[in-house]
């Protein structure tokens, strides 16, 4: 990044930066103009998916560990927030009803780190039994983990022990409050009305930016290199003194943390969650964002997340009118079109552009088969 920046004309780059910031700040207004409040919600969720995709990228992209059950961490974070900032626990457990008669409404800035921590713990729990597994088997067990979490969320809603309220989900979850100000309320600045969707946009944008910075720093760090070494050749990595076991656990738990935070934000934003949102399809959606965007390449993953989230939404608004106009009725439901296109893009990308839409750029020089020269021996640099 520094090298890239150094090459730029300082005036140009500051100008470019200002434009970017202005564009990002104005985005929700633009979205509202073009598509109404619905579209502001869509870009809000797209930002959450950017976080999710970047989190999964640590596991799949950096470390080469195929995780098909990433949604489990999303679920853990979401349910943690749901339980700790709604009345569900008080409604269902005498202990809580006694101590928290109005329901638990623990502030978000306490819950989110807790949710992140719990997700990280879940990451370690998932990682530990599968440390020796490779490739397909690893993928299958992670899939199983995701399914088990979903089954648990679905089944722990019995009358005798209602932790998750089962398929009915948990509602009336508190919104995010920043310094006592609830983001569900509309903020009026002068003549500008900032509704809930706008406020959450800026919050999620901030979180996404923090995520990007953290991921970028991790990538360029000693740990990031160790992860990539693991991905490329785990035996050579070990031979270079890397404790592969530990960095695998780190990958799972750090990746999980982002999922957990995103999950918590999702719960607060939507005010309601249910096991339906945490299915295998979701895990694959997030995986597709990473793989199709450009595995291991942060800008590519961001692009993948944005495209794969907004495109189906976009389809929803074009496919149905299109079918109505051309065919006179809805022949194919949008959900089916979405799933079909998701499956098709996965197949096509692997066949024709396996590195993703925007992979890590390699220096353009061809294989240096011709030039086999070696520099004259330099002086002794031995420490």
């Amino acid at each position, binding site marked *: 990044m520094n090298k890239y920046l150094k090459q730029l004309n300082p005036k140009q780059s500051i100008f470019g930066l200002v434009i970017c910031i202005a564009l990002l700040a104005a985005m929700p207004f633009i979205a509202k103009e073009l598509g109404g409040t619905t579209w502001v919600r869509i870009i809000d969720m797209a930002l959450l998916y950017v976080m999710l995709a970047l989190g999964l990228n640590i596991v799949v992209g950096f470390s080469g560990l195929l995780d098909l059950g990433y949604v489990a961490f999303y679920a853990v974070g979401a349910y943690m927030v749901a339980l700790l900032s709604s009345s569900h626990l008080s409604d269902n457990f005498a202990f809580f009803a006694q101590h928290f008669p109005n329901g638990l409404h623990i502030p978000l800035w306490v819950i989110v780190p807790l949710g992140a921590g719990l997700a990280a713990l879940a990451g370690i729990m998932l990682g530990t039994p599968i440390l020796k597994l490779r*490739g397909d088997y690893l993928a299958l067990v992670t899939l199983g983990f995701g399914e088990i979490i979903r089954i648990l969320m679905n*089944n722990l809603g019995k009358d005798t022990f209602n932790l998750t309220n089962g398929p009915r989900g948990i509602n009336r979850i508190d919104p995010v409050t920043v310094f006592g100000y609830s983001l569900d309320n509309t903020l009026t600045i002068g003549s500008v009305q900032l509704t809930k969707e706008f406020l959450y946009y800026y919050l999620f944008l901030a979180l996404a930016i923090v995520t990007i910075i953290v991921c970028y720093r991790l990538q360029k760090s000693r740990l990031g290199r160790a992860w990539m070494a693991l991905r490329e050749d785990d035996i050579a990595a070990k031979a270079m003194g890397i404790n592969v076991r530990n960095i695998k656990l780190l990958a799972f738990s750090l990746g999980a943390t982002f999922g957990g935070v995103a999950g918590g934000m999702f719960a607060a934003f939507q005010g309601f969650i249910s096991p339906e949102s945490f299915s295998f399809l979701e895990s694959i959606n997030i995986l597709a964002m990473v793989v199709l965007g450009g595995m291991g390449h942060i800008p590519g993953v961001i692009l993948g997340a944005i495209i794969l989230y907004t495109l189906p939404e976009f389809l929803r608004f074009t496919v149905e009118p299109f079918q109505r106009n051309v065919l006179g009725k809805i022949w194919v439901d949008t959900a089916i079109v979405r799933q079909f296109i998701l499956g098709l893009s*996965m*197949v096509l990308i*692997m*066949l024709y552009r*396996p590195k993703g839409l925007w992979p890590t750029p390699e220096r353009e020089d061809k294989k240096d088969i011709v030039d086999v020269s070696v520099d004259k021996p330099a002086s002794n640099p031995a420490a």
Partner: protein
Amino acid sequence: MSAFDLFIQQLINGLVKGSLYAMIALGYTMVYGILGIINFAHGEVFMIGAMVAMTVSTLLLAMGLPTILALLIATLAAMLVCMFTSYSIERLAYRPLRHAPKLAPLITAIGMSFILQAVAMQIWGLEHFRFPDVLPSQRIQLFGSVGITMREIIIFIVSIVMMGGLFWLVNHTKLGRAMRATSENVNVASLMGINPNRVISATFMIGAALAAVAGILFATNYGGKVHFFMGFIPGMKAFIAAVLGGIGNIPGALVGGLVLGLVEAMGAGYISAEYEDVFAFVVLVCVLIFRPSGLLGQRVADRA
């Protein structure tokens, strides 16, 4: 139900279900043995078999054909459709990636499975269907409160017969020899004049035929829940069964299927029916930790 009765009843339930898992598992294990990939879309082939058979048999029954005939024609139709589907999947999604890193075919496999589900959703919609009553469902009481339905007996017998047919094919025919050779060493097999592409295609189609029959039998017996997503969980469990028995090992798929069926039945009977699906994953983790080569697989030395 007395403890002994419960045990025997679950034993029966487990073996019946297990025989179905085994039939599906064979498809996974054969493909993994030759190509080294998990054919993620195999569960959807199972689903398509059930769906096609359901539609065809409903149609034929409505036309007045005798039940047996309707069932046989429906089964044949399902097998053909499944074989064609599986063949196409291999040609389109796996063959071009035969030399790519293993992640690529896994992704295309998942993609294919999504495509098939979408197609099924479009053709049949989202509703859950009941498979027409084509198999006799009288319950035969064995002793105490233990019983078995005619249907379950038929399922078990058909499964065993079909798997027996497969074993005969693999061990006593030219094609079977070619399959075994190719799964040992593709290059050497081709040097011996075996066309690996033909063998691979045949393998996919045979697995598909078995999955189609398994789908039909499954649909007739288990609550008649026929819908576009019915292949996902049984597919996963069948793969786990294949791993349990020793991936790539054909008798292993049979053993793994039966054992998994039993574990599930016992778990459902004694621990909790609700968490039935979880037992399979517990089995998977245990196998991968304690005996990764599976029950019948070779001991894999911990090589560099």
